[in-house]
């Protein structure tokens, strides 16, 4: 199902006179299997757009839709459930729970979804095998390298087979070689399983690999380029 942002504004009221546009008249469609990136300098509004897509913040104007349904009409708790059911998240600093092993970190959203033990086990092993960490499931995050932690984070995001994976600067904290491996992994997951990805990034290697690049400036998508299509 398609995710859509239609004429979305996000205005932050700094003071009575001073308004800042986090997002301005953003129009965006994300279809199944898309592999796209929001590109722009820091503060340009990339992350705001990701937050809007995720329903973590609501637009001041315009609408957010998923499969034609209006996300803005959902309550806070309903939007949380919506994220759980349809989205996966990858963070710049991995955001793994330090008290849980790699296996348990991946298991976490599956537990929230209420999957059976058997199904959880199958999905976690599938996700671990996709990110190449089959034998590291019982390790805690602090026992893993940065690259391995990001792989666990990716496994957590994809284990529930979400309709959309949102990744905020996923290669920013990684060394060049590891970043390249992670980009390859994203590409493989997109091509093999038609997983939909939207990145917020300014990593040129990642930008070079995506199908659609949207340049963001002052909260607006100033330009959209399609390649590798």
């Amino acid at each position, binding site marked *: 199902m398609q995710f859509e942002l239609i004429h979305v504004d996000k205005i932050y009221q700094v003071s009575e006179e001073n308004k800042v546009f986090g997002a301005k008249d953003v129009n965006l469609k994300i279809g199944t299997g898309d592999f796209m990136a929001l590109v722009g300098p820091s503060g340009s509004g990339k*992350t705001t757009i*990701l*937050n809007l897509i*995720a329903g*973590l*913040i609501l637009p001041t104007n315009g609408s957010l839709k998923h499969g034609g349904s209006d996300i803005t009409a959902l309550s*806070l*708790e309903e939007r*949380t*459930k919506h*994220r*759980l*059911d349809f*989205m*996966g*998240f990858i*963070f710049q600093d991995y*955001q793994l*729970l*330090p*008290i*849980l092993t790699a296996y*348990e970190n991946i*298991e*976490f*959203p599956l*537990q*929230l*979804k*209420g999957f059976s033990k058997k199904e959880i086990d199958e999905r976690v092993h599938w996700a671990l095998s996709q990110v190449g960490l089959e034998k590291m499931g019982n390790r805690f995050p602090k026992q893993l390298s940065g690259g391995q932690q990001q792989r666990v984070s990716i496994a*957590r995001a994809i284990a529930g087979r979400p309709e959309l994976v*949102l990744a*905020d600067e996923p290669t920013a904290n990684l060394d060049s070689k590891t970043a390249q491996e992670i980009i390859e992994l994203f590409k493989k997951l997109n091509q093999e399983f038609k997983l939909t990805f939207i990145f917020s990034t300014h990593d040129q290697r990642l930008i070079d690999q995506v199908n659609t690049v949207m340049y963001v400036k002052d909260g607006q998508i100033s330009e959209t380029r399609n390649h590798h299509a």
Partner: protein
Amino acid sequence: MKGFKFLLKFSYRNLLRAPKRTLILILSLSIGTGFIIWDLNFANSGSKEVMKEFLNQYAGEYHITHKDYYREDNKKEFNNFKIISDSEIPDKSLLTFTTRRVTAPVFVSGEKKTLGVLLTGLETEKEIKLSTLSKAVTVGRFLNPNSDKEIVLGKKLAHRIEVKLGDEVAVIGQALDGSVANELMTVVGLIDFGGGDLEESLAFTQIKSAQELLVMGPDQYHQRVDFNMKDETLPQIKGLAVTIWTDLLPEIGVSVRFVDNFTWLVSIVIVLVISLGLSNSLMITFLEREQEFQTLNIIGAKTIWVTVSLLIEVFLLGTIAILLGLLLGQISTNYFYHYPFNIQFFTGGKPIIMGGMIIQPLVRIYPVLEYYWKVPVMIYIFLTMTMIYPLIRVIRRSKNAI
């Protein structure tokens, strides 16, 4: 609840995340719990032992009397003729731990002086078994069960009417039939409660002598006094009054209740202080994990899930601490059960004077079952209250975006 096992594991692991901090929290709560249990047991046992000592000396646990005997307007009469007999008590088991007494206001007259006192006729043999009154006789001896017309006077009374052991005193009162009653009795002992004024107004004789003096039948008396401390349920006897000591001695009953309530108050304050400290620690712990809570929210954990996980965490901590505290409280209580201590340890070596009598009990602390559930319930309530503010802050701040 689906996924509860995972939730439990999650909360348990969070407890182990900062083991030293968790240990300090558990120790502070368990020591507090242990102290409260010990303190309540001590207050309860202490006041019960003190009361037992006091009541055993003379007053008794409860009195069976004519229903009008203790009525306020009867106290104004010179003599209270409200008598009873054993035929009015259908449950004969009530007679086992009770002794009969005859009481009357009389004048006791020596060769030179006369004073008005309360004369009590005692069933000497039973009195020796049930009360410790006989042990308060410091000069001479207690009443001989096989003799009559003997009198034991309060030490100060004897001094004031200037009589000594072996002297005869005239006892003058009003008989049951309204006539003047008088009898000569021999002073065989002087009683000393150590307290003061009480010894100025008491005199004791054999029940038979008192009955003869007051022209009462041998089966007639005023009070049956019970000394069975274990019997806390007041019996009901049709047509008669059964009065418990707290009503007979209201000022002492009030002071015992005060000690009990005050100990609870102290316990609540202790828990409150610990709770405030705990609340602060929880706040710090939760705020340190703020980013994690945000992540949980982003990846799909609802507020209720986060709240329940934190509640489980705190209740796990609380339960471990309470169990440990109950154990500590029980061990310390048990120690003082086997090694009772003198109450004077807490009174600077001075005796306790209650109702005009010196009492010096050895306090044996024994566990009171109800504290072992009431205290945990109180702590759980405070723990829940402790959680409210940190939880609200965490939940508010976990709603942030990426």
